[in-house]
């Protein structure tokens, strides 16, 4: 009955127990860090907590690299196809026969890739934070939360069961909440963490209902079985889910769109993106880890995980690509106008995730048409590297200048040489300048879009130009522009510990593009030949360079060109500056509609109507008894009359009526 300890070693057993236990340890080591630091960190570890956590994570990162090596080069491939391996699985909660939450580990190219990304970036952030967060009062707490996050994220990417994914999905949400609210005494941080949690929670509602629909029709929650059942067009499950329809749309599409809503919330896609810029209230390394490299791409990962099912519904893929492209363009436009450097990066993240999403949306299931899938995963990979680098660089700047605002910065290249160089590399990478990492992945995305949908391609192209513009606007504003800086004292760059992650990541951002990604990650597991079309790359690269030069022209030296241009596009600039008023819309919906139109009436109704009814019953009883006690007048003769009348009445009743 209880299968907790009966660990089922499914799939290819040849992975061996060794690798199995190593796999389990990958998420458990950060969890151990969380528990130990959370329970005893304050008392026993104090400032050495960071080193402790970092060591644990380093072990975890090593194990995941080991796993990746083992998977990609030794065991993973069978007959030229990368297999989906479930080495460990046990039943956690059985709902009904077939439908159960199983906790397990699913290894396939994307999960292994994510394992590496998560542990690697997390390790970088751990190292970086050793210096960045030094001296914080709640230093051990910070590291314990990082551990919790890393654990949850690893659990998420290794999930073998859609409900397991949901579980860890919620856990990453809460660790993000805890980390955004790390500076709990700042009201803005508190507001931001609540906002982040509630909006993603709202999206999770969609995810949950999507899961319910899928589980109902699929009869299982297991990824492999589910995908198998819902992708073979002649299975009964597939037939019922396609034929069942609600409002003219098939249950399959509904389920996938709902699941996608969950992904969109976590990945901050339009219109559920409003929490991401505010989430920058958290410590900067946290933003690098959670809100740039790992957690926010969970939505992309989710769609990729269910991609075989998504590919069965054109409408769902259409929704994915439309939302993706809108987010990409929308965020890029806003990013051009923001002055808080972390917010610029946040919008840039949103824009890049939009790229990944529409790339998935335009992809097909196998072979050449699966380019979008590979491209999205590739971009996810490279983006994690250069966006983490950007954030950590921004953190280094903020650490130096104690401000997030562009206007307080300028000419920092002399004070922060290493940061400057690494930041530049990251900017070039994200702008798609060859031969940096972003170039390769973005090329593939654009190519996939070009083959599939011209409109999306053109918008994507324009967005990619905008990307390089706003990134270099940022770069020039920080490191060039005005030469004097408001913050006079120069206290160095923050030492080797902070610089090490920057350097490591910049190497990655520069070189990761040369990985033959298609060989390892593709929609159907077969190696995908990445073809390089030189003539195709001309347009994006030219546009990217144009963006860079425009930014240079406007921001390299202090001048009034930005203001003039902003002035000439007055209304549009304002619109973008105010983030297209989406926040205000949300505020309106929550404050006016949710609170005032539903919450308040509900509370009023309860206080007055329901409670009034109860009190009314009580008062009515009192009223009746007040009247009834009039009978009890103490006047003997009155009693006697009642008595007599009653007797006569009864006599009449018994004699004449009831005989």
């Amino acid at each position, binding site marked *: 009955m209880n299968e907790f300890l009966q660990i089922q070693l499914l799939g290819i057993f040849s992975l061996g127990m060794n690798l199995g236990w190593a796999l389990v340890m990958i998420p458990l080591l950060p969890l151990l860090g969380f528990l130990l630091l959370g329970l005893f960190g304050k008392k026993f570890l104090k400032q050495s907590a960071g080193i402790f956590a970092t060591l644990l994570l380093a072990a975890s990162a090593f194990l995941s690299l080991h796993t990746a090596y083992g998977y990609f080069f030794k065991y993973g491939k069978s007959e030229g196809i990368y297999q989906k391996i479930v080495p460990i699985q046990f039943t956690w909660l059985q709902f009904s026969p077939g439908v159960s939450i199983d906790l397990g580990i699913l290894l396939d190219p994307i999960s292994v890739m994510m394992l590496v990304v998560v542990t690697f970036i997390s390790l970088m952030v751990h190292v970086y934070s050793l210096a960045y967060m030094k001296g914080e009062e709640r230093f051990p707490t910070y590291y314990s939360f990082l551990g919790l996050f890393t654990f949850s994220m690893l659990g998420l990417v290794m999930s073998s069961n859609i409900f397991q994914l949901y579980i860890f999905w919620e856990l990453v949400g809460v660790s993000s909440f805890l980390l955004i609210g790390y500076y709990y005494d700042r009201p803005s941080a508190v507001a931001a963490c609540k906002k982040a949690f509630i909006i993603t929670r709202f999206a999770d509602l969609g995810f949950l209902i999507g899961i319910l629909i899928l589980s109902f029709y699929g009869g299982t929650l297991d990824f492999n079985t589910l995908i198998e059942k819902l992708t073979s067009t002649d299975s009964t499950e597939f037939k019922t889910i396609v034929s069942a329809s609600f409002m003219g749309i098939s249950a399959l599409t509904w389920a996938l769109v709902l699941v996608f809503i969950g992904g969109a919330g976590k990945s901050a896609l339009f219109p559920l993106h409003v929490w991401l810029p505010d989430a920058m209230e958290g410590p900067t390394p946290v933003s690098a880890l959670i809100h740039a490299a790992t957690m926010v791409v969970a939505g992309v990962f989710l769609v990729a995980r269910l991609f075989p099912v998504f590919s069965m519904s054109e409408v769902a893929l259409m929704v994915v690509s439309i939302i993706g492209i809108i987010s990409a363009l929308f965020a890029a436009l806003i990013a051009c106008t923001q002055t808080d450097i972390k917010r610029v990066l946040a919008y840039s993240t949103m824009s890049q995730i939009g790229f990944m999403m529409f790339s998935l949306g335009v992809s097909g299931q196998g072979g050449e048409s699966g380019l979008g899938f590979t491209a999205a995963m590739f971009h996810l990979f490279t983006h994690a590297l250069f966006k983490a680098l950007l954030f950590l660089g921004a953190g280094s700047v903020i650490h130096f200048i104690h401000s997030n605002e562009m206007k307080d910065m300028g000419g920092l290249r002399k004070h922060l040489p290493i940061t400057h160089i690494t930041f530049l590399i990251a900017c070039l990478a994200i702008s798609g300048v060859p031969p940096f990492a972003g170039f390769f992945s973005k090329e593939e995305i654009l190519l996939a879009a070009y083959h599939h949908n011209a409109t999306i391609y053109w918008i994507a192209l324009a967005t990619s130009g905008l990307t390089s513009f706003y990134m270099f606007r940022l770069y020039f504003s920080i490191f060039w522009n005005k030469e004097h800086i408001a913050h006079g004292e120069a206290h160095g760059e923050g030492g080797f510990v902070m610089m090490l992650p920057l350097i490591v990541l910049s190497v990655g951002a520069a070189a990761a593009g040369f990985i033959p990604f298609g060989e390892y990650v593709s929609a159907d597991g077969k190696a995908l030949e990445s073809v390089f079309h030189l003539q195709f790359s001309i347009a994006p690269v030219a546009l990217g360079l144009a963006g860079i030069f425009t930014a240079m022209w406007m921001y390299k030296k202090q001048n009034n060109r930005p203001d003039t241009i902003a002035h000439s596009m007055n209304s549009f600039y304002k619109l973008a500056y105010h983030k297209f008023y989406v926040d205000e819309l949300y505020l309106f919906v929550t404050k006016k509609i949710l609170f005032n139109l539903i919450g308040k009436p509900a509370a009023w109704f309860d206080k007055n109507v329901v409670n009034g009814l109860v009190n009314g019953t009580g008062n009515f009883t009192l009223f009746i008894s007040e009247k009834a006690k009039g009978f009890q007048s103490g006047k003997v003769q009155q009693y006697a*009359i009642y008595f*007599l*009348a009653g007797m006569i009445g009864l006599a009449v009743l018994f004699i004449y009526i009831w005989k």
Partner: protein
Amino acid sequence: MSGSTIIFYLLSILTLVSGILSVTTRQIFRAAIFLLFSLIGIAGLYFWMQYEFIAAVQIVVYVGGITVLIIFSIFLTQQAGELLPQQNKKRVLLALLAAFCGFALTLLQIIQHSFNKTSETPILPTMENIGNQMLGIEENGFSLPFEVVSILLLAAMIGCIVIALRSKPTTV
């Protein structure tokens, strides 16, 4: 019309009329006297039915005992010549209605019902029979109720004394 009949009607008239007067007169002493007459009329009825013993008891206890008791208590609680307070009209009317309805209903029932005399040999209510049965302990003997009533009377007597004792001012 025999003499017995005439006597019956006279006695009934005496009983009912003085009864009515007893409950309606506004002078309390007269009410007591009318009650006395009514009770005497009832005693007469007992005589008329040839239940001499019970008639005698009626006269001794009611006429001689209770009425006197009542008159004493009137003397104790009433100023002479004071009229009884009048009851409000509504109450009188209600009471009249209730009494009349009850009367009509009861009478109707009595008239509709036919009482059949038993055919067994009658026992005459002579002193001998009454005495034997009242104090008899065999079947149909009434000695137990007799004793119970004696104790009741004793208790009532003690109760009267206790209730009527002037309570000490300190305990009030």
